[in-house]
């Protein structure tokens, strides 16, 4: 048990730090932490992000735990975290490569052919080609395997028809990874197939989704007879669910790097600067108790992610335990934002950056927070995962298992 760096880790940290200092600018630690999910990247930002990624890739910093032959550093998960911690201290462009490197790359490395690995991985690593994930559909969110996007064989190609939703970065991605239904006459998990799709193909239409926080980082993607060569199939026909699970496991295994600590500092500052009954709110015991709870929960999450890391370092598989971070962290984020708005009293109902404390960052976080509880698995799905896959509690009776997909009830909404 040691929360400090070993000498080797300290050396790695120094190396990372030195490279970052030579190549980037330190961020202002006092700047109020802004939330994500609200931005939509413009072309200039994307170009900047790609330039930064290319620089990192050349020095071997983009995917530290990957084997060297695939462009990685052959490093440990702890080194990846050390890198993340250090990089977070610098001003860097948004990381639009995380979906590719974190989830899709590992899927190709696991299930892809040698040709697919050779064609796609190097450009993914250096950031010259950006990737997106096309899984959810309007009628298949929490129940992902209920998806209806059809793929029908036509010679050497497949023809894709249907709609995907919640696709981050679809508008600037070169490639997408998609799960489709190739056979509606077998049970719902059995009829799926997984493809790599060229996002520039004719027949693809991308529409941004406006979120309740005004941002539009997600898209709807419509497929109208989109041709995908069979060579882009990942895994066997009908094996799509197995391949998708690999992607999802890596999604959940993406590890925190002490995020949220800035947020707590902002809240502490707010409590110092806001008054209750003529004195700083920070002197009010209700505020103090609440702050203590937030602090303890955030620290608990942070150390829990570290514990997962130690397990990974020992060669254990990334387990569904990683779901804890999101299941606890997302509602915590919402509670903190709500509390911060309340602390401001009547002013808390202003979202005017010129009039509300800390440029109305808390109001922004409060309206963004619900998204964190829904994206990448709702609270409810995460509880199911922990209950069934971590705790091994028995499943509920299923009405959609042993029937052909076309016979599963879908209700009036999808009738």
């Amino acid at each position, binding site marked *: 048990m040691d929360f400090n760096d070993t000498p080797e880790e300290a050396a790695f940290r120094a190396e990372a730090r030195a490279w970052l200092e030579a190549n980037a600018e330190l961020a202002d630690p006092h700047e109020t932490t802004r939330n994500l999910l609200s931005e939509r990247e413009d072309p200039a930002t994307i170009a900047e992000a790609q330039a930064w990624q290319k620089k990192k890739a050349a020095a071997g910093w983009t995917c530290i735990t990957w084997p060297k032959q695939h462009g990685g550093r052959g490093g440990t998960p702890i080194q990846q975290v050390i890198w993340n911690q250090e990089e977070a201290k610098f001003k860097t462009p948004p990381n639009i490569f995380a979906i590719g490197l974190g989830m899709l790359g590992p899927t190709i490395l696991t299930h892809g052919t040698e040709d697919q690995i050779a064609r796609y991985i190097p450009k993914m690593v250096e950031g010259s080609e950006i990737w997106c994930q096309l899984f959810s559909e309007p009628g298949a969110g929490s129940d992902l395997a209920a998806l209806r996007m059809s793929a029908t064989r036509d010679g050497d190609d497949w023809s894709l028809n249907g709609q995907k939703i919640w696709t981050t970065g679809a508008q600037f991605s070169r490639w997408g990874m998609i799960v489709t239904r190739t056979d509606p006459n077998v049970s719902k998990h059995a009829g799926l197939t997984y493809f790599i799709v060229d996002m520039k193909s004719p027949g693809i239409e991308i529409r941004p989704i406006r*979120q309740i926080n*005004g941002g539009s980082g997600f898209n709807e993607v419509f497929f109208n007879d989109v041709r995908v060569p069979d060579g882009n199939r990942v895994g066997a026909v009908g094996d799509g669910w197995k391949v998708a699970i690999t992607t999802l496991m890596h999604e959940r295994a993406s590890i925190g790097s002490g995020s949220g600590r800035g947020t707590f500092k902002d809240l502490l500052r707010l409590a110092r600067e806001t*008054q*209750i009954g003529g004195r700083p709110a920070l002197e009010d015991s209700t505020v103090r108790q609440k702050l203590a709870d937030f602090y303890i929960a955030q620290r608990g999450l942070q150390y829990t992610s570290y514990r997962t890391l130690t397990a990974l370092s020992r060669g254990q598989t990334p387990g569904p335990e990683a779901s804890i971070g999101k299941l606890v962290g997302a509602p915590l984020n919402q509670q903190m934002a709500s509390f911060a708005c309340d602390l401001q009293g009547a002013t808390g109902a202003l979202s005017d950056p010129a009039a509300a404390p800390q440029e109305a960052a808390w109001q922004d976080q409060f309206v963004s927070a619900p998204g964190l509880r*829904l994206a990448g698995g709702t609270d409810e799905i995460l509880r199911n995962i922990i209950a069934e896959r971590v705790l091994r509690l028995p499943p509920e009776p299923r009405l959609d298992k042993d029937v052909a997909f076309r016979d599963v*009830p879908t209700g009036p909404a999808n009738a």
Partner: protein
Amino acid sequence: MNFDFSEDQKLLQKTARDFLVEHCPLEAVRKVLESSSSYDPALWKGTAEMGWQGAAIPEAYGGAGFGYLELAVLAEEVGRALAPLPFASSVYLATEAILLAGSEEQKSALLPSLASGDRIGSFALFEKPGTPTPDAVETRFEDGTVSGTKIPVVDGDVADLVVVVARDGDGLSLVLVDLDAKGVERTRLESFDGSRSQARIRFDRAPATVLGKAGEGASLAQRVLDRAAILMAFEQLGGAQRSFDETKAFAMGRYAFGRPIASFQSLKHRMADLFCKVELARSNCYYGAWALSHDARELPLAACQARVAATEAFELAATENIQIHGGVGFTWEYDCHLFYRRSKHLALALGNANSWRERLIQELESGSAA
């Protein structure tokens, strides 16, 4: 003992609901939210024609003279519809302040136009973030003029007159200011709930007249806030009930894993808990309405109860509404966020729930009831 509204009051509720279903669908709320307008003037006029603004104003002053139980019923419907109106500012706050403290002359001069909706009133108390003490008021009344900055003032940008809590010598007074007068500068502010407007008002020796006894502004303001809290609690109750109804309807129609998501036990149990929360808030609100209509000794305590319970119920219901909708609940296109925004707007409009809990304990300590 009778713990329900009367048949007549229920009829009024039905009429109000039917009217709002027709004239204030959520698209109307969204229109205000997405535009630069501060409220819906046509709807304001329509409600005035039905006598809503003057529900508690005696007929002698141009009101409908219904009473507070009737006003509570209307407030619930206004809340249910998320009506984009300066109803709370004008009716629960400005009108109540004038009814409570105004001279005969002030009542005669102002209430008829407030009742008819021709003029909009508002109430300016807050000056900075947090939960202030009365001591914190810096806006000053001197020589018949008022100077200082109030922020935020709900509906301050569209109001015609405002009741201002101002320092007056050693104490506080309520003063009335005509917002078209010189020395008034108003700035509209971005509101968390864009369907309800917020403003900063700067007064620079703006002409003002005292409302009620000079120096009694602190206790008068508290009495106004107590009354408004009960009525606003009904708005929150309406919003909570509607959020709950929308949640349930969605969960019944949305299928996952081959069955309606409303059949999943974890959602069923959460909806059951939410139902309890809303019902308990309703009960506390009813008690508040009774206290208001009887001007009961327990009014301050009842106000705190109703306010806190309704705030919690609406905030929880609006939050669960998004969560149970899933991904679509986070889209601008769906209506979930309208409730979420309004729930926070109303939660803070009269100071946060903690400040009302604190006031409740003060009331219990002073032994006014319990």
